[in-house]
């Protein structure tokens, strides 16, 4: 019996689901081992008897919570798909600013028309069984996650930093190239594609379990970044996680 799989999205760009579609095209054999019953990006049917739910997007308004809980009730396994679901993602940048100010900035005089609250990862709302990190997710990691689910285990993702991936592919360290990088505190698993293309890591896969934030900030400082620049660098994908580490609640 093929497990029934459903895809859902909350606040996101849906890029991770596009990556899933791309993965399905590259690995059509995926459809021989799973049955997709709901996937708005790809089909119009909406089956509700799924066992595995992949959820893209962060939770950014109170009314999302009920739907997320409903999915949790139905699914045996809930997988957070991508940086927004995993970390709150880019949507959480606003969490450090007063919410009213953000609403005004974004919606102007129509701000009261839109419901919103500080962005949060799925794990802040429900228990999440597994995560496929990244912005967007990695195709290979998605296929591996499905394999693990078929084996009856929780998809495993690396818990070591990106520097490992970078060195395994023998990239020259971005710091040695005079650039900055969040690799030493960011979860590996992407084969260090950004450094391989000459771009320092932005942290889209989230922090490793015990990041040395003090030390990474010092390294960034030594490579010419101001405190503001460091804060900005750590805000793109890591606002929710760094605020948690600091014990700061959204404004």
């Amino acid at each position, binding site marked *: 019996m093929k497990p029934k799989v459903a895809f859902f999205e909350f606040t996101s760009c849906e890029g991770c689901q596009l990556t899933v579609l791309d993965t399905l095209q590259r690995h059509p054999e995926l459809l021989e081992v799973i049955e997709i019953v709901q996937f708005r990006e790809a089909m119009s049917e909406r089956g509700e008897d799924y066992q595995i739910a992949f959820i893209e997007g962060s939770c950014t308004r109170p009314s999302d919570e009920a739907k997320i809980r409903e999915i949790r009730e139905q699914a045996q396994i809930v997988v957070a798909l991508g940086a927004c679901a995993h970390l709150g993602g880019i949507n959480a940048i606003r969490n450090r600013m007063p919410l009213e100010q953000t609403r005004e900035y974004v919606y102007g005089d129509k701000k009261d028309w839109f419901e919103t609250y500080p962005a949060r990862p799925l794990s802040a709302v429900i228990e999440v069984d597994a995560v496929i990190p990244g912005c967007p997710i990695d195709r290979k990691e998605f296929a591996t996650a499905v394999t693990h689910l078929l*084996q*009856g*285990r929780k998809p*495993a993702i690396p818990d070591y930093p990106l520097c490992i991936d970078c060195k395994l592919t023998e990239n020259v360290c971005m710091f040695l190239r005079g650039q900055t990088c969040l690799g030493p505190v960011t979860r590996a698993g992407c084969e260090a594609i950004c450094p391989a293309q000459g771009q320092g890591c932005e942290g889209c896969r989230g922090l490793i379990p015990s990041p040395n934030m003090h030390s990474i900030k010092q390294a960034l400082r030594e490579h010419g970044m101001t405190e503001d620049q460091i804060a900005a660098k750590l805000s793109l994908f890591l606002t929710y996680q760094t605020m948690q580490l600091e014990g700061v609640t959204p404004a």
Partner: protein
Amino acid sequence: MTTLLRETLDHSSIYMPTPARIVAVEQFTELEKWFHLELPSGFTIAHQPGQFVEVSVLGIGEAPISICSSPARSNGAFELCVRRVGKLTEALHRLEPGSMIGVRGPFGHGFPIDRFQGKDIVFVAGGLGLAPLRSLITEVLDERGKYGRVALLYGARTPKDFLFPDDLKSWAERGDIECHVTVDRPTDGWDGNVGVITTLLPKIDFPARNTIATVVGPPVMYKFVLQDLLAKGVAEGNIWLSFERQMKCGVGKCGHCQMHHIYTCQTGPVLSYAEVKDLEEALS
């Protein structure tokens, strides 16, 4: 001709397992199962009590597991007692009789049983530590005449967590091995000892000079048991401990099990206190 399992390492690759069939599975506790395994015909395992094998579920991975059966009774078959604690053991627990797994080994050094002859032996087992010790206990009891007095001290978390209940019963009945068990937390109906394993040590009054102690259990147990054994006067070289470490390869190559200059998988897992007492990492 019989091929020893470890000889299969010499040709092809030291990392390639030999298939073994699960012939029977018994659930001991919620977390622990007892697996009876059979090697292909013509293979035998020839292990020392205390040695381990690397067990593979192909597609999941590999993990080190102590052999719990007696070498003398092996004859191509052996047994493992497996606690479900990680991805490999979870997969193993899902397997039914008839399933195939992979095994490599046996690896390292077990208990130097030849040096135990004529001595009194105290087996100190905490939890799953009874598994490797059962291999030794069975071996000792099979040749009971070679040894002095023999005692087993065994601690489990609750009365529901005792492993090898049939063995415990038969050992208790045979009269030539003193058996003392204790639990950390009693449940209704338990009228035996309650408390950590060291509370059992005073029950043994062997002359320390002639005593061998074999200790296997969780890391936290070692410090306290050692303290009491040394205080009793058991010689440092007569206290044998089995060290648990992450062992990815079993052949002294992957580096995970290193403590000081020792690869636990090769020099250990069984080492005497005399060998490790100066190794700060061993018992920290």
